[in-house]
């Protein structure tokens, strides 16, 4: 059996960009499908043809009867199922990474602009403000997850739907091909077999058990997909129903160019009555320079959101940076801003720090396990040196990262996250995922730093290498 670690390491990357239900789905995929397939099921189907016995001496009869009974071996079928079911996730991940790259580019541009401004301005206050902005942008670099909104959300929903359709297709396919279980006796009437020949299947009970097990797991995955769609749908409905309450969170949506729906929310934001004028509760929005001029139009009307938004915002997790309204041209608001400024900035810093520490934390487990290129040991080979093999296989997923790391020195952030086991890393992020996707602002995404735009180019190159070796792996799987 080929090594699943390649696909596993790619899916670990997907893990970062998933919601919590998506992470559970990935865990089930890894443990109950890939692991079971690799360590248990494969051996059951090993002697499928050699132990397929027919009650005849007719040469060729056994071969044609086996071919008729088993058009595709279930092991290969399940391998195809896993690959097809995982593929939409890879498409979504590609989109997420692309989005991260554009955000990073924007961040760089903004940083350059700010640096220029820093040199130009002489006023001490402006100086300090700009320095703080720069610091914030630096901190954003550490956040690596694209916020789930706009076209990315569409891709996400589409990928879940595709996954569900593919899953259903494979479940139906398995039922049509083999039914629920395997009968021990197969009556064959194909040429050159004389009349009807009794053929006996090897290990039918054990195979039936595994077939049922895999059907149940596929059903569970399908259920999780539906749950995820429901979860996203409910959130969307909540957002539209409670759209006015989320005004502060979505203030920055006004500035987004990408989301036209968002502009309607903007209008709602501006026209909805504001309950509190506490700027301490204002969520801050970093405004791209060209849109600062438009701000004065909004600011007088767009007051701070109600205070109960903050508690809602808080559970949404550390990856939701508050948005900052910067109004250098509005002196009457400056004093009000500065009241809550330190408090907000500290929470902003702390939240961004938390993003960074979440990402950097699991790195600690990475380096000790990253020992360089390892040959991909198949399970059979690992019989011989299992202690080493156990360690090796936990590092095989790192070897690709290692090669990527050597490609680009700047991609330090990018592959190291994959070094950690996806559970420890992914779980630490999972609570913050759903809230990050709850808040719906693109400028917030501007701030969520994904410091990989220079790193993005090496991974695709490595990705091409990956895909080649993946094809080789798959061909070795299929050969069996």
């Amino acid at each position, binding site marked *: 059996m080929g090594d699943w670690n390649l696909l596993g390491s790619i899916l670990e990357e997907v893990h970062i960009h998933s919601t919590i239900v998506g992470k559970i789905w990935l865990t089930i995929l890894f443990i109950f499908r890939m692991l079971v397939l690799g360590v248990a099921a494969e*051996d059951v189907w090993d002697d499928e043809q050699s132990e397929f016995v027919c009650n005849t001496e007719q040469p060729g009869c056994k071969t044609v009867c086996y071919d008729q009974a088993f058009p595709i071996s279930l092991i290969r079928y399940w391998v195809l199922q896993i690959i097809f079911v995982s593929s939409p996730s890879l498409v979504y991940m590609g989109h997420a990474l692309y989005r991260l790259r554009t955000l990073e580019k924007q961040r760089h541009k903004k940083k350059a602009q700010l640096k220029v401004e820093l040199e130009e301005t002489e006023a001490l206050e402006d100086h300090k403000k700009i320095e703080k902005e720069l610091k914030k942008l630096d901190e954003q670099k550490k956040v690596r997850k694209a916020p789930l909104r706009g076209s990315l959300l569409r891709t996400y929903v589409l990928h879940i739907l595709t996954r569900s359709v593919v899953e259903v297709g494979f479940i139906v396919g398995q039922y049509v091909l083999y039914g629920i279980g395997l009968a*021990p006796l197969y009556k064959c009437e194909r040429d050159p077999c004389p009349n009807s020949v009794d053929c006996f299947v090897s290990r039918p009970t054990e195979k039936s058990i595994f077939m049922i097990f895999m059907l149940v797991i596929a059903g569970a995955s399908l259920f999780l997909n539906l749950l995820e769609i429901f979860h996203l749908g409910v959130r969307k409905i909540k957002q539209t129903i409670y759209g006015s309450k989320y005004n502060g969170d979505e203030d920055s949506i006004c500035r987004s160019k990408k989301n036209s729906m968002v502009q309607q929310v903007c209008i709602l934001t501006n026209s909805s009555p504001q309950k509190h*004028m506490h700027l301490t509760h204002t969520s801050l929005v970093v405004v791209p320079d060209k849109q600062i001029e438009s701000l004065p139009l909004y600011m007088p009307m767009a007051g701070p959101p109600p205070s109960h938004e903050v508690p809602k915002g808080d559970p949404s997790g550390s990856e939701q940076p508050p948005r900052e309204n910067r109004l250098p041209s509005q002196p009457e608001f400056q004093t009000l801003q500065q009241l809550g400024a330190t408090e907000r900035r500290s929470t902003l810093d*702390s939240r961004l720090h938390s993003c960074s520490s979440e990402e950097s934390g699991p790195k600690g487990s990475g380096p000790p396990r990253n020992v360089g290129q390892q040959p991909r040991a198949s399970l059979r080979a690992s019989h011989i040196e299992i202690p080493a093999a156990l360690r090796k296989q936990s590092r095989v997923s790192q070897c690709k990262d290692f090669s990527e790391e050597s490609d680009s020195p700047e991609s330090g952030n990018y592959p190291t996250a994959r070094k950690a086991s996806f559970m420890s890393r992914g779980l630490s992020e999972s*609570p913050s995922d759903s809230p990050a996707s709850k808040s719906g602002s693109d400028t917030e995404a501007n701030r969520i730093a994904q410091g990989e735009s220079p790193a993005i180019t090496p991974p695709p190159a490595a990705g091409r290498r990956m895909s080649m070796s993946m094809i080789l792996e798959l061909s070795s799987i299929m050969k069996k």
Partner: protein
Amino acid sequence: MSWGALYAQLGGVNKHSTSLGKIWLSVLFIFRISILVIAAETVWGDEQSDFVCNTQQPGCKNVCYDHFFPVSHIRFWCLQLIFVSTPALLVAMHVAYRKRNVKKGLLANRAGSAKEDDLESLKKRRLPITGPLWWTYTSSLFFRLLFEAGFMYALYYVYDGFQMARLVKCEQWPCPNKVDCFISRPTEKTVFTIFMVGSSAICIVLNVAELGYLIVKALLRCSARSKGRRTFVHQDKISTEKALLQNEKNTMLLSSTSDSSTNKTV
């Protein structure tokens, strides 16, 4: 996906287990998974090819083998190990959730830039097993016990004990009358079966001990808390009245300051 990947997953959970939990994990990986992969799989490797029946009837051997070995021991143990390892992931999820909340608390309470150290230490720190985490941990232990015991019993039931017979008499169709079939390496298989059952029993004992330890610890904690409350109650009543008065004053002060702040911002 292989056992190594599972080890990587569970290794992270290990940090937050009790010492008994760590011992359990070592026993699991060294005595069960390693033995399974290195030794047991080779022993059972030729179980069907060397299963010989005293007949020329085609298909008889297949049918007899299927009748006497509905699930191979190896697959049994693989599934048992996978199911037994899975509840630990529940704990991992809960720990991650709790850490996130603690982190948020830290960040909300303190202002300042030197927070990275705190957060890093939080990442490395082992959270105490109290409150809801205790319940998650205990229920994961419970499920582990359930799966272990369940699989052990199923193995005993399917194979009528833990011993492998040398000879089985088969009367399945298409075998004519009664046919003698001979199992390959029965003694070696018996040895390994007893070994795996023994390590499974040790794991059950460890899990029960861990469960007991957690329950006792929780009970002690509860009793310590209730003792503390009782001593507080026995304090001078006057001092409590003073404290109440002070509380009222404080609340009044707070409300007045919040009023003044609202006046300021509006």
